[in-house]
């Protein structure tokens, strides 16, 4: 085994005719593609203003990032995982099994999820119930649980325009989908009374799961790519509604018409106050064992949550991040290096 390992390393090193100096001097992070633009903005400014190399930021998705973080401790593992959803107990267990004992959880702010259609189309004012009735596999009609019969948004809610239902929603590998499921579908499921009917028909657990079952007749399309793909699909189908991140919408306000949710227009303000219902916190997770080993790591995380970056007037807010009202507490926590406690 050892010789094989030596052989592979020797081959590799011989190939590059390098000295075996593998010490890493730049920070490496990976994870959520929602956090990626924010992380690159911070990394760029960090590289410009500090005497450390610019951190390397990789995408790949929240789950993939956390998995990489938990691969172990050492210079060939990443230092920071960006995540648009909270870390799971299974991740923490993997981490612990691989010797990553202490992780710091840093909340950088909030992200809104908006529903937008082509700029030339009609205005939409949605509620979670509208979305549930439009996309769910089974809905309640006249007190009966039936397969979804709705064809147009007008069928769903007489106040909505007479437009065929076609929605581009994020695929299941996206963190955004989780928020959509919880804050829109589950909320709508409960509000329309479908939850009660489903639980009565299928039992507690299966009934709740059935809330998330979407119709499969092509009215709801999962987009596994990025928001750019959703946007180009909207270009091709001007009748469709797409699900986007707030920052993406803010960069494309000349092409997209945003819909209100429960009467609230999404904006950094309405999300900060909690009025706009579909939002989520964004995090990054730091491997504590790498602090003091990888040069600049402490400075980078301090800089990330500093007022000049993540504050309400900073570049992250300008890009679409809803800054965290409790940023000061986060700054203290980061400076003190407090690891996260058990999940509650």
């Amino acid at each position, binding site marked *: 085994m050892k010789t094989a390992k030596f052989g592979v390393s020797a081959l*590799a090193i011989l190939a590059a005719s390098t000295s075996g100096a593998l010490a890493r001097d730049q920070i490496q992070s990976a994870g959520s593609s929602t956090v990626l633009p924010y992380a690159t903005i911070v990394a760029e400014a960090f590289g410009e203003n500090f005497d450390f190399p610019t951190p390397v930021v990789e995408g790949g998705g929240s789950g993939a990032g956390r998995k990489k973080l938990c691969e172990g401790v050492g210079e060939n593992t990443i230092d920071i995982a960006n995540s648009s959803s909270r870390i799971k107990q299974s991740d923490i267990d993997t981490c612990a099994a691989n010797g990553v004992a202490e992780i710091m959880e840093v909340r950088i702010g909030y992200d809104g999820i908006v529903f937008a259609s082509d700029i030339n189309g009609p205005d939409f004012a949605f509620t979670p119930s509208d979305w549930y009735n439009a996309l769910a596999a089974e809905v309640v009609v006249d007190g009966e649980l039936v397969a979804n019969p709705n064809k147009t948004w007008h069928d769903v809610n007489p106040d909505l325009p007479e437009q065929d239902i076609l929605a581009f929603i994020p695929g299941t590998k996206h963190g955004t989908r989780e928020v959509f499921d919880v804050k829109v579908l589950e909320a709508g499921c409960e509000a329309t009374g479908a939850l009660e009917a489903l639980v009565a028909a299928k039992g507690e657990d299966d009934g709740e799961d059935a809330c998330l079952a979407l119709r499969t007749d092509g009215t709801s399309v999962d987009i596994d790519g990025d928001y750019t793909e959703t946007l180009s699909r909207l270009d091709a189908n001007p009748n469709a509604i797409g699900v986007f991140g707030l920052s993406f919408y803010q960069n494309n306000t000349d092409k997209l018409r945003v819909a209100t949710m429960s009467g609230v227009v999404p904006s950094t303000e309405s999300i900060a106050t909690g009025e706009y219902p579909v939002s989520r916190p964004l995090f990054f997770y730091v491997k504590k064992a790498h602090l003091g080993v990888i040069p600049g790591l402490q400075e980078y995380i301090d800089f990330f949550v500093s007022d000049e970056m993540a504050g309400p007037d900073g570049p992250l807010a300008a890009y679409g991040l809803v800054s965290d009202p409790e940023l000061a507490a986060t700054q203290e926590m980061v400076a003190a290096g407090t690891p996260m406690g058990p999940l509650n």
Partner: protein
Amino acid sequence: MTLADMSHRPSLYTLDARTKARNAAEKRFRLYGITAVSLGVLALVVLLTSVLGSGLGAFRQTMFTLPVTLDAAVLDKKGNRNPEEMAKATTITYGKVLTQALAAVVTERGLAPEGMKTKEIGALISKEAPASLRNMVLANPDLLGTTIDFEVLANGRIDGFFKGRVTMESAELDSNVSPAQLQLAQAMKEAGMLRLAFNPAFITNPDASELRPESAGLGVAILGSAYMMVIVLALALPIGVAASIYLEEFAPQNRFTDLIEVNIANLAAVPSIVFGILGLAVFINYAELPQSSPLVGGLVLTLMTLPTIIIATRAALKAVPPSIKDAALGVGASKMQTIFHHVLPLALPGILTGTIIGLAQALGETAPLLLIGMVAFVKDYPAAPPEGFLDPAAALPVQVYNFTQRSDPAFIERASGAIIVLLVFLLTMNILAVLLRRRFERRW
């Protein structure tokens, strides 16, 4: 014999039904052929026009020159010209200096629309400008206290306005730019301040964050790709050629070598992402080489290219006539002398062609790099080789992928621009392969 009888006899001048049918079949086949070729050409033309149409803009960028007074009281508060102390003035401070400089110029020349705020005027300047001004001042503290002509890029939306991507109507709805700012830019252009010029920085600059698409470039990606190609060439060519010579000339024909042969052909068809998974497991997790480094990327691409090179080399060796080998052996040359003095030189053009095609394939590969951390935002240039092989870097196709994911529409143009650069590299390599074959190939 009557005329009617004549018609029943076969004649070369009158076509009978079967000949007509055969001729028609040939005509139809030619038509199919032409249709197939035209479809291919059409697809190529559509692809090229769409890529060139949206990508050529990336090579031109809106920029303007700004007289900037570097006030020592602002930029060097301690007044001791010590770069370490001066580094405390961050890019935010430099941004303010630039904003004021632009505001002063446009107000003095009467270009700014009524009631425009200084902050809005400053938004015309690329967010990259403060960083490069700061670097310039830190590198040469003597500039403090002087007024320099500093060239800055215009913000991506302003650039888009002159390229037709942004219009007054879209600016009304756009939260990132206002019609007033476009008017100011138009006025600056008419006053001769602002120009759309060739932008070599697109080739040399590193990637940039989404706040400054105008300064994003391909420098790191081109370097990363070049490093990987060096590694692939240095490893795949000798290993591939040695393996092929042995298999072709020395190896006994038995089940074992048959098995190897089948496996090589098989490996050539394995989806490239599989090599990425292998690379992650072997080179990063097991051999503990650094992530995102061109070394690991090059090793993975070597594995992917090897079968192509081996197959091409074996074909080239096979094409050398046995008479040459026999003649060399007949005059007493050893087997090794025969191969190295006669067979290999004759097979060389074929080997080189195969290698270059293999390299071109490796150059355009993204999937395996996804798994070894090369699909990343890398801002710093890798160092010169050999150390640079271990520094993080991006690669050209990866850069295309990264650009297409960004939300700012200015990146669409840059993605197409990156495709153009990649196509130019591929075209050069393939032309080189054709030239080598034409120049050195011998037919028997």
